[in-house]
């Protein structure tokens, strides 16, 4: 059982940072809504508030890790140009997608959208975390700030969802391949 180094990086980027961020988004949205509405029924404790602050900070780290590994580790492998005369394009995902009318849309629409929209997620969630850390429960008293924070958190979720979906589909049709093989397990014949 083995995995190529580039495949492992793609896993770390997509499953490790991206998918974990998406999973965290639903929890953050629910908690932010609960904390920022003025209902007395769900009065939060300082411990819960501290937990949400740490939770949001973790999301900020995940979001930045996802876009930075995507742009500076995986994207260069994705967009690498093949040397003249190259026949097999499996090591050049962008050119592989562009070589067929059936898959070109995954580059011209999927990757072109993903590579930019994904950055709205870390920008938005950084702001959300800053405002929540700064105001805490007091944000209930700032109705306009509260509405904007919730909307930005929602857009962050949508942006990450678009990037995640496009990334998964691109990796399905033209996976990033190559690099050193990493042995995960020595299989035994049964």
């Amino acid at each position, binding site marked *: 059982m083995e995995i190529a180094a580039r495949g492992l990086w793609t896993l770390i980027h997509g499953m490790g940072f991206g998918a974990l961020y998406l999973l965290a988004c639903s929890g953050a949205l629910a908690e932010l809504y609960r904390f920022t509405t003025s209902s007395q029924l769900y009065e939060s404790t300082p411990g819960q508030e501290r937990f949400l602050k740490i939770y949001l900070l973790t999301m900020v780290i995940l979001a930045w890790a996802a876009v930075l590994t995507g*742009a500076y580790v995986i994207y260069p492998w994705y967009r690498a140009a093949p040397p003249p005369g190259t026949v097999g394009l499996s090591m050049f995902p962008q050119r592989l997608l562009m070589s067929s009318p059936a898959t070109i849309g995954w580059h011209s629409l999927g990757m*072109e959208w993903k590579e930019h*929209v994904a950055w*709205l997620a870390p920008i*938005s969630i950084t702001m959300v975390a800053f405002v929540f850390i*700064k105001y805490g429960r007091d944000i209930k*008293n700032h109705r*306009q700030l509260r509405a904007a924070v919730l909307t930005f958190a929602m857009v962050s979720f949508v942006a990450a969802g678009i990037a995640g979906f496009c990334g998964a589909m691109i990796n399905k049709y033209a996976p990033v391949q190559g690099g050193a093989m990493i042995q995960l397990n020595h299989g035994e014949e049964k």
Partner: protein
Amino acid sequence: MNVANSTASPLTNGSGAAAILAAGVGSFTLAVLACAGDKLATVKNSLVFYKPTGPLSGVTTAAILVWLLTWGILEWRWRKRTVAAGRISAIALVLLGLGLLLTFPPVVDLF
């Protein structure tokens, strides 16, 4: 922005409004730079900060710098003030919406 009436909160809303508007400005800047890089070869070439990543490196680095610079300036100006948060939030959300729209390739192709 006009100074609005203060709320019942002990904290002014200026710091939060600064962060929100800066995030809107950053998102919009990113989308505009991506759009400009797609349409103009000179802009595209000038945005290649790191060759393996291509123009994406310049688009994102420049947008992040604009976002953080805007945030810093607004935080410095508004942190102790109560500002018109409703109007500022509305502007930030419009910028965010435009940013979201301008990252969608079929919309970029309209220009």
